């Protein structure tokens, strides 16, 4: 004998609502799909991913791998993806360095330095990123001189076509130098391991810093000299109106990296500041009372705790930077959003496929980073009751 009507049973109601939700969402999707298919047919737009093998027919100003106008759309996608990763990678590097410096400066006991850091943070956080990108590109880089009157700083050349560097070209035998570099890295790892074991056993470790630096620079250099200096630099040469040869960073890349780094660094600075402040002052005091020196306190007590607080939001910012690189579409820097979701989309008209691929790539990067973050968090979380 039921004590209540079955439609009041919470479990039945739960299933009812869930089934309803699935039907509604499913129905919604069905309607959209039907309409889309009809519309695409009416517009004579092709479907499917076959277009990836068709010839692209357009050039790209910066390619990290082989590409020409007769390459396929698929190849263009790859080039664009690599360009995205390039600008994101460089941007993340500079943003982190500047961000940590400004964040630590913000906490400096020197009043002037702390205020300057605050001004930096408050200025660049509150101005839209697109505006900053356009500013660096238009107001600064376009005002650079023509190639004939390039600015020279050492072996760097700056003009309105970009930043030119001599390109290192390895000759036979350079492989040994590279190998020496990696052997040096291995050596450093061994040195640290050995030092730690010695400290555990006897209380005193080995000096690490100078031998490591010596190994890192010395070993490759000696190998280089012994191999007869198998390296020459291809210097960019002025031919006609432009430079040929060497490495070139196009102005769009420079503007993008500059703006992304400066903007994201402002957010990273705040994260670093609050991370360090999250470690209570009592921790430093207890460590001081035990007789630990300043560097030891930072390394053993403050930074491990600060990093736990800093790293999750820091990864968030890295992700934001990667997504923000899509603003390159405003500059025609050839990355994923501007080349693939831009030119390729316009030429093939296959918006659905192109946008799906593009969004899937960004989504994939996001999920990957989130997963890595969650994994890291579960490993290092402070153990509590």
């Amino acid at each position, binding site marked *: 004998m039921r004590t209540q009507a079955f439609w009041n049973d919470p479990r039945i109601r739960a299933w009812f609502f*869930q089934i309803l*939700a699935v039907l509604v969402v499913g129905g919604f999707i069905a309607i959209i799909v039907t*309409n889309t298919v009809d519309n695409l047919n009416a517009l004579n737009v092709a479907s499917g991913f076959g277009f990836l093998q068709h010839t692209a027919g357009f050039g790209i100003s910066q390619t990290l791998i082989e590409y020409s106008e007769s390459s396929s759309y698929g190849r263009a996608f790859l080039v664009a993806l690599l360009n995205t990763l390039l600008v994101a990678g460089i941007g993340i590097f500079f943003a982190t360095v500047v961000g940590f410096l400004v964040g630590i400066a913000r906490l400096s006991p020197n009043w002037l330095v702390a205020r300057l850091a605050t001004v930096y943070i408050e200025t660049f956080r509150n101005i839209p*990123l697109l505006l900053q990108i*356009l500013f660096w590109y*238009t107001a600064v880089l376009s005002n650079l001189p023509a190639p004939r009157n390039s600015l020279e700083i050492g072996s760097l050349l700056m003009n309105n076509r970009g930043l030119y560097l001599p390109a290192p070209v390895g000759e036979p035998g350079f492989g040994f130098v590279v190998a020496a570099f990696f052997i040096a890295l291995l050596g450093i790892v061994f040195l640290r391991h050995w030092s730690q074991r010695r400290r555990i056993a006897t209380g005193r470790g080995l000096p690490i810093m100078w031998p490591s630096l010596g190994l890192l620079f010395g070993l490759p250099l000696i190998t280089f000299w012994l191999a007869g200096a198998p390296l020459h630099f291809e210097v960019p040469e002025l031919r006609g109106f432009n430079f040929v040869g060497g490495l070139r960073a196009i102005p769009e890349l420079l503007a993008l990296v500059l703006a992304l780094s400066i903007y994201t660094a402002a957010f990273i600075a705040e994260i670093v500041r609050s991370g360090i402040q999250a470690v209570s002052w009592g921790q430093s005091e207890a460590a001081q009372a035990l007789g630990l020196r300043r560097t030891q306190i930072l390394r053993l007590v403050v930074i491990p705790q600060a990093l736990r607080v800093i790293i999750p939001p820091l990864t968030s910012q890295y992700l934001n930077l990667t997504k923000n690189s899509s*603003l390159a*579409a405003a500059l025609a820097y050839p990355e994923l*959003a501007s080349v693939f979701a831009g030119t390729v989309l316009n030429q093939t008209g296959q918006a659905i496929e192109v*946008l799906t691929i593009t969004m899937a790539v960004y989504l994939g990067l996001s999920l990957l980073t989130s997963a890595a973050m969650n994994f890291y968090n579960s490993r290092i979380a402070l153990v509590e009751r």
Partner: protein
Amino acid sequence: MSFVRDTYLVETPPPGMNVGVLGWLRGNLFSSASNTLLTLFGMYVLWTVVPPLIEWALLDAVWQGSGREACLVEGAGACWAFVAAKFGQFIYGTYTFEERWRVDLAFLAGALTVGLLMIERMPGRRYIAVFGLLIYPVIAYILLTGGMFGLPEVETTLWGGLLLTFVVASVGIVVSFPLGIVLALGRRSQMPVMRVLSVIYIEAWRGVPLITVLFMASVMLPLFLPAGTNFDKLLRVLIGVALFSSAYMAEVVRGGLQAIPRGQYEAASALGLGFWQANLLIIMPQALRLVIPGIVNTFIGLFKDTTLVMIVGLFDFLGSIQVNFSDANWATPQTAATGYAFAALVYWIICYSMSRYSMRLEARLNEGTRRA
């Protein structure tokens, strides 16, 4: 060893070099060799940045003029005359000149609503909020679009400038707010289907850049609807922005919900309240108070993100400034820099004020929760 004091000692001032202006300077700027170096470095930075900036923006700037000749003067700084001449367009876009009063009215009404909401002890705050979320949008829509009540229609293609920026940001926030609440509740729901659907929605929108969403909105939305539906470009962008923003709003609301102690939920069910009643009457009011700083921060982010609509062909504040750089009448080397500087200033003032307000709110909220 015993001791008893007979008279208390009076306070004496500290040794000279430690107080006053000199003491402050000594302590904060010159306390050690490295500190002094830092101070010198800081002063160098100031020296290289501030005087040239003041020269360019104020001393050498051109304040009046009607064309490029005014700003082509030798050694001219910022071309504020350009800003002055184009000011109307920067604010209203190409909105019909005679109807601009409608924009002013809509903005004033909105500002008033928000202003009243910001007053701490305002009576009837809830009613003002309801007005702001439900009634004011309708009024604003009528005022801005027209086509009824005797107001001539102004097509959305004419909207631009700061007007457009505020429209996109405000609509984005107002629409994403209820959506975000539903999604946040869905994500915390016990029903697996709701949870999965919510999580997929939230993570999908949060994982992609806004640009791709805008592309998707302008290119794909017309395909989703039956052929022949005329789809206003602004509307497409608004839909994209609202959906995108709702995912972030959902996370903000979720943070607020998580901050409500379990005891509140338990007390609500002990009183016999069902799911919707408990949430509406007990949980939500508390959670929403907590997330107001988060909502303001989301609005600040959205406000900055409105600049992206320029890439899909709408002329917001930044877009209308940028498009005027190619006006031949004002082509000078300083035009672009001046325009960007003006844009940066306006955005900075608005965003900075909002972020100060949000910080004050947060501090006030934390006051209430901190134990004495």
